[in-house]
C-alpha cells in the first residue's frame, strides 16, 4: 500500500478539539481544591490538641507513669484501652478493600478509599499508644529482635511480641494497599494539576499511563494484596485479643475473645467510617457518589456486627455462670453492678441495644439518625474495651489486692489528643488525595454506558 497523501497526514496531526473532562474527575478532584475557613479552624484545633497531648506525654516521660491513674493491681489503663480502640477502628478499611473486593461487592467502590485512609491513620494513632503506655520510652526498642551486646533475643512465646508483629505488618500492608490502589487516581490528579501539586502527583503516580501492561499488573497485585490482607484483618484483632486471653485474669481468659474482638473491630470501624463520611459527603456534595444505598449497606454491617457483639456479651455472662468459677462469676457480677456499672451499661446499650433500631429501613436511610448512632457506637466500643480491661484487672482472684482505677486528667488529655491526631491526618488527606477511588467509580460508569449503548458486553 502507498502512504496517504501529505495533506491527509497533516489533517491527522491537527489537534482534535478539546473535549470536556470526565465529570467524575471534576466532582471528586474538586474536594481537594481550596479550603474554607471552617477547614482551617478544624485543622488548627486538631494540630493544637495534638501539641497539648504531646506536651502531656513529655511531662509523663519526665515525671513517670505515676501521673496516670494507675492503682494496684490496675496497671493497664486508658492507654491500652485507647490502643485497642484505634486498632479496632482500623479494621473497616481493610475489610472493605480486601474482603468486599474478593466478594465483588461493587458498592464498596464509593467508600473504600476513605476507609483505607482511616485504617492507615487509625493504626498510626494506635501505634503511638504502644510508646505512650511503656514506662521507659527510651528502652521501647527492646521489643524488636535485633542482635545486641546482651546477646539476648526477644521472647516469641509472649503475646506482646505477636502483637508487635501483627500491628507492624498490618500498618505496612494497609499503607501499601492505600498507596497501590491510589496510583491510577494520582495519575488522574497529575494530568490536571498545576504547580507544586503537579510535581507531587507526578512523583507519586510513578509514570502511570493506564496501559494494558500497567493495569494488568495492577489488578493482579490488588487481587493478591486482597488475598493476603483478608486473613490479616481477621488475625490482627485476634492477636490483640490474645494479649488478654492468654493471661489468667478473670473475664479475659476465654476462647471467645478472637471472634468477639474481630466482630467488635469491624463494628467500630464501620461506625467510624459513617461518622467521618456523613459530614464529608454533605460538605463536599458527594451525595451522588456516596449514596443513601452505601450508607444503608454500611448500616446493615453495623447491625450484623452489633448482633455478634451482643451475642458475645451474653455468652460471656452465660459462661461465667455455667463455668461455676467463683472468680469469673464475681468479675461479671461486678461488671454489671460493681463500681464500673456505668461503663458496662453504656457498653451494652450503645453496642447491643441501640443499633437494633437498624432493623427498620426508615432508620437505615435516615442520615442524621445514622450519624448519631455511629457516634454512640464509637463511644460504646471505647467503653467496651474499658470494661474488659479495667474490670478484669481491678477484681482479680485475691480480694486483698483489689483496687479502683480512675483515669487521670493527663490520660484523658492524651485520649483527646488521639482523636485530634487521627482527625489531623484525615483532614490533610481530604485536601491532598482523592477521597473516592476515581478509577473504580469510572469502571462502573463506563460499564453502564457500554450497556446503554448496547456494546457487546
Amino acid at each position, binding site marked *: 500500500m*502507498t*502512504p496517504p497523501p501529505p495533506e491527509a497526514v497533516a489533517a491527522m496531526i491537527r489537534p482534535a478539539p478539546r473535549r470536556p473532562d470526565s465529570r467524575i474527575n471534576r466532582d471528586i478532584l474538586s474536594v481537594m481544591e481550596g479550603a474554607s475557613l471552617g477547614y482551617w479552624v478544624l485543622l488548627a484545633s486538631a494540630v493544637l490538641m495534638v501539641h497539648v497531648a504531646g506536651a502531656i506525654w513529655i511531662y509523663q516521660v519526665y515525671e513517670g507513669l505515676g501521673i496516670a491513674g494507675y492503682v494496684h493491681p490496675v496497671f493497664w489503663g486508658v492507654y491500652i484501652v485507647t490502643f485497642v480502640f484505634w486498632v479496632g477502628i482500623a479494621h473497616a478499611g481493610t475489610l472493605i478493600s480486601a474482603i468486599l473486593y474478593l466478594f465483588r461487592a461493587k458498592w464498596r467502590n464509593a467508600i473504600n478509599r476513605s476507609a483505607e485512609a482511616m485504617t492507615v491513620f487509625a493504626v498510626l494513632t494506635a501505634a503511638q499508644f504502644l510508646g505512650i503506655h511503656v514506662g521507659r520510652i527510651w528502652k521501647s526498642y527492646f521489643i524488636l529482635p535485633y542482635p545486641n551486646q546482651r546477646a539476648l533475643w526477644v521472647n516469641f*512465646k509472649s503475646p506482646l511480641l505477636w502483637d508487635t508483629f501483627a500491628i507492624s*505488618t498490618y500498618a505496612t500492608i494497609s499503607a501499601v494497599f492505600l498507596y497501590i490502589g491510589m496510583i491510577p487516581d494520582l495519575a*488522574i490528579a497529575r494530568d490536571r494539576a498545576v504547580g507544586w501539586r503537579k510535581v507531587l502527583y507526578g512523583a507519586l503516580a510513578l*509514570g502511570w499511563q493506564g496501559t*494494558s501492561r500497567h493495569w*494488568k499488573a495492577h489488578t493482579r497485585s490488588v487481587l493478591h494484596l486482597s488475598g493476603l490482607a483478608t486473613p490479616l484483618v481477621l488475625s490482627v484483632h485476634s492477636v490483640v485479643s490474645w494479649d488478654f486471653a492468654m493471661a489468667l485474669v478473670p473475664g479475659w481468659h476465654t476462647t471467645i475473645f478472637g471472634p468477639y474482638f474481630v466482630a467488635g473491630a469491624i463494628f467500630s470501624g464501620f461506625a467510624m467510617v459513617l461518622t467521618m463520611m456523613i459530614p464529608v459527603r454533605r460538605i463536599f456534595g458527594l451525595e451522588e457518589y456516596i449514596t443513601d444505598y452505601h450508607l444503608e449497606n454500611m448500616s446493615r454491617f453495623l447491625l450484623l456486627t452489633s448482633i455478634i457483639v451482643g451475642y458475645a456479651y451474653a455468652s460471656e455472662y452465660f459462661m461465667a455462670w455455667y463455668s461455676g468459677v467463683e472468680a469469673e462469676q464475681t468479675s461479671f457480677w461486678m461488671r454489671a453492678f460493681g463500681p464500673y456499672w456505668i461503663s458496662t451499661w453504656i457498653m451494652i446499650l450503645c453496642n447491643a441495644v441501640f443499633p437494633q433500631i437498624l432493623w427498620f429501613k426508615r432508620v437505615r436511610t435516615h442520615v442524621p439518625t445514622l450519624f448519631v448512632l455511629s457516634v454512640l457506637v464509637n463511644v460504646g466500643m471505647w467503653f467496651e474495651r474499658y470494661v474488659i480491661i479495667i474490670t478484669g484487672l481491678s477484681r482479680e482472684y485475691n480480694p486483698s489486692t483489689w483496687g479502683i482505677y480512675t483515669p487521670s486528667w493527663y490520660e484523658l488529655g492524651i485520649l483527646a489528643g488521639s482523636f485530634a491526631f487521627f482527625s489531623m491526618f484525615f483532614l490533610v488527606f481530604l485536601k491532598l488525595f482523592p477521597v473516592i477511588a476515581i478509577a473504580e467509580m469510572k469502571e462502573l460508569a463506563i460499564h453502564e454506558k*457500554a450497556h446503554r449503548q448496547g*456494546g457487546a458486553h
Partner: protein
Amino acid sequence: MPTLLGVYERPDQVAEVATRLRARGYTDLETYSPAPFAEVDDAVDEKPSRVRVFTLIGGLTGVVTGYAMTIWMANDWPIMLGGKPFSSIPPYTIIGFELTILFGGLLTVLGLFLVGGLPSLHRDKAYSPRFSAEEFGVAVRCQDRDVSEVDALLRGHGAEEVSLVEA
C-alpha cells in the same frame, strides 16, 4: 516508524480492535484505559500476569523466615520459659503467619513495579490526559506502507478519531 492513535469510547471496541490488529500482525500496540477492563488487557496480552510468582516467592520466604528466626533465636540463647520447649511451634506460627503476609505483600509490590514497568520517567507520545478522563486509546506502531490499512482498521471498529502521533 509512524504511530497511529485511535480513540474509543467503550472498552469492548478497544478489545475488538486490539484482537483484530494483533491477528493482522500489528503486534506493536499499546492501549490506554481510564479504568481496569480485563477484556482490554487480555486482548493485548492473554497470559496471566507474572505478579503471582512474586507473591508466591514472598509468601514462602516469609513463612520460612518466621519459623527460622523464632526457632533459631530461642535456641541461640536458651531460656526456659513456662516449661515450654525452646522450639514451640504453636506460638511461632503466629510470627510465621504475619511474616508470610508481610513479605508476600511487599514482594507483590515489587512484582507490580517490575512486571508493570513502574516507576517510569518515560511518557508515551500517544498518551494524553483524555485517557485519564473517560476515553480509551489504541496506539499502533507500523511501517509507512501500512498506515492506511491500520487507519482503516482503527476507524472500522468505531474510533471517534484517528490521529498520527509520530510520523
